[in-house]
């Protein structure tokens, strides 16, 4: 790999992007986002510490970076209103996140500073007096307990299951390579015909970009929004 970025532990795509811009000493602008798009993509395709349940977050940012990057490479490319909106949101989110990340450092200084208040035991010195709530019944207790049971999260396990099916980028690259080797020539829409959702399409697209960069495949696209054709270089 060309890049060996040394970053602190990062949490989430915005954190990663922010650290990349800071490392390159860039402000948060569209131009600088285009500049670091490759680093971001490299990073997430090789990072070991992105858990599957966070992958979707990383990929949705990746998709927007790819848009920004394409525009930088192809100035004629025009964004749809929706795309423009998504990119603007990313820029703003990043700027806002930066504010809170900076604030968190200052709050952290307060946490570490030797200033702590203490409070006293409430009602200290008072003996226990039996003060039952007026209208409480055994049935109220039962209902409250059932509510407690009902609120215990069972969701988290479900989330894990649904994400488990999604392939990682690494796996997708291998899959793409194999598919191309077998057919020598394929269109992007053929390759993603079995994709289960948007995330998998984005993963496939990232995998394609990665293969282009490693000069393993060659892609052609005749016009905007037209079909992308992929060829395996060895098969030329």
């Amino acid at each position, binding site marked *: 790999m060309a890049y060996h970025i040394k970053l602190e532990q990062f949490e989430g795509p915005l954190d990663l992007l922010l650290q990349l811009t800071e490392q390159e000493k860039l402000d948060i602008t569209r131009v600088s986002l285009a500049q670091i798009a490759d680093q971001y993509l490299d990073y997430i395709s090789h990072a070991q510490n992105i858990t599957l349940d966070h992958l979707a977050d990383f990929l949705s940012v990746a998709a927007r970076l790819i848009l920004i990057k394409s525009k930088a490479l192809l100035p004629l490319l025009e964004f749809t209103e929706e795309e423009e909106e998504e990119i603007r949101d990313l820029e703003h989110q990043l700027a806002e996140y930066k504010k809170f990340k900076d604030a968190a450092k200052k709050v952290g200084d307060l946490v570490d500073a030797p200033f702590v208040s203490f409070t006293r035991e409430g009602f200290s010195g008072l003996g*226990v007096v*039996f003060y*039952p709530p007026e209208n409480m019944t055994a049935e109220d207790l039962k209902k409250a*307990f059932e509510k*407690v049971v009902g609120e215990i999260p069972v969701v988290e396990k479900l989330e894990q299951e649904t994400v488990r099916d999604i392939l990682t980028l690494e796996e997708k690259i291998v899959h793409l390579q194999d598919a191309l080797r077998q057919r020598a020539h394929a269109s992007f829409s053929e390759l993603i015909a079995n994709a289960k959702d948007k995330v998998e399409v984005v993963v496939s697209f990232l995998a394609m970009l990665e293969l282009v960069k490693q000069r393993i495949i060659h892609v052609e696209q005749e016009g905007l929004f037209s079909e992308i054709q992929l060829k395996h270089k060895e098969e030329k």
Partner: protein
Amino acid sequence: MEQEKLQSIIESVLFVSGEGIKKSKLAKIAGVENGVLEEVLGKLTEKYSLPRSGLTLLAKGEEVQLASKADNVVFVEQMVKNELAEGLSPAALEVVSIIAYRGPISKTEIEAIRGVNCSYTLRNLLLRGLIERSDNPRDSRGYVYSISFELLKKLGVDRVEKLPDYATLSTEERITSIISTDTENNPENN
């Protein structure tokens, strides 16, 4: 150290301690001679004697203690009554129900079930006599909580087993599983 700072320190320590504290201990904490401490205590007594102060310094032999001014007892009693005698908040009711159906149970376990710190609620329920605590047989430094006999009686039952659906609810598996997963992962590691 200057007088004003000393006054501030002594007031902070007296405030937090709640109970009476030996003057020698106070002097040691503030790092001053007994004579200096006496001066500071004098200044504090003077300050508390102003009409606008709500505090007073009680002295009993070698011990001193911060307390609320006796003139305000009516208002203080009203506050205590309001705070303790009002209806239970939904959160407090939930804690009581957990203690009723799963007691005796530790604070850590209650918190694992609700996902929220319960120190304040537990103290309040103890003061109201709705729950009781005893030493935790599995952890000598901790306590376990159970519903008080008075509350059971008020609810019209003589033991927890007679609470509605006790047999099924007290063995509810989701509760058991969250207690075991959550108390394994130390909640303090963040």
